[in-house]
């Protein structure tokens, strides 16, 4: 099941709609790495609100997405991790090491806005 990816200004928003298989997650990683370049995106938001499980593979792949897009010049924020999913991740010992997270899409966009403004200032 392909994940729809929308573009808003300099940000790509991957809005996961339903449970994803390992293969779907890897496809999302590859799609985002490609689309960051094609759309000259500076930020990526992966919305995982619809995911009822983030197991070791999914967590590792989300980290992979964040590191890959960073190498392509875009910062990734993971938004929408549900409370029970967060609890299970902690029990499993899973972390997103260094990958920014935000409560929801709105907070994620606000976080990236802050980042890209700072980057703009730096270029002037």
């Amino acid at each position, binding site marked *: 099941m392909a994940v729809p990816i929308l573009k808003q200004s300099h940000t790509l928003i991957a809005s996961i709609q339903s449970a*994803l298989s*390992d293969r779907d997650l890897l496809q999302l990683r590859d799609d985002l790495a490609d689309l960051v370049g094609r759309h000259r995106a500076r930020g990526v938001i992966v919305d995982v609100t619809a995911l009822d*499980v983030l197991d070791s593979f999914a967590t590792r792949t989300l980290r992979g997405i964040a590191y890959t897009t960073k190498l392509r010049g875009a910062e990734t924020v993971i938004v929408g991790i549900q409370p029970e999913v967060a609890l299970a991740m902690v029990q*499993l010992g899973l972390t997103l090491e260094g990958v920014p997270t935000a409560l929801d899409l709105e907070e994620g966009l606000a976080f990236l806005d802050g980042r890209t403004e700072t980057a703009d200032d730096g270029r002037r």
Partner: protein
Amino acid sequence: MSELHLGAVVRVRIQSSADIVTARQEGRTMATTLGFTNTTLTIIATAISEVARNIVEYAKEGEISIAPVGNGTVRGLQIVARDQGPGIVDLETAMRDGYSTSKSLGMGLPGAKRLMDQFEISSAIGEGTTITMTKWIG
């Protein structure tokens, strides 16, 4: 020690990563009817995901069976993951955090053990691996 099956067993054939999703959804459905809390539903689904992936990565195929069980007055959900794969050479090492011979980072089986109340694993070289894990209500 001896748990009684209290209802029909649901079996899911595991051959691909899509079957991992099916297995955890079946587990969640049965756990919901048994009255587990939302947090525990997620914990059970996550543990199923880890043992199902273990089958796909190491044995290529196998089966997950999910059943309601009882022991005295307590009720719970029991998951059995069975494969006829190569088996695990060193069980003790395989259950250690961070150990993996595959591309995963070895969080899977020790992680599933932490998530469940009971977790037993048996494996024979060339014959396969069986994991039995249970979560009790309350």
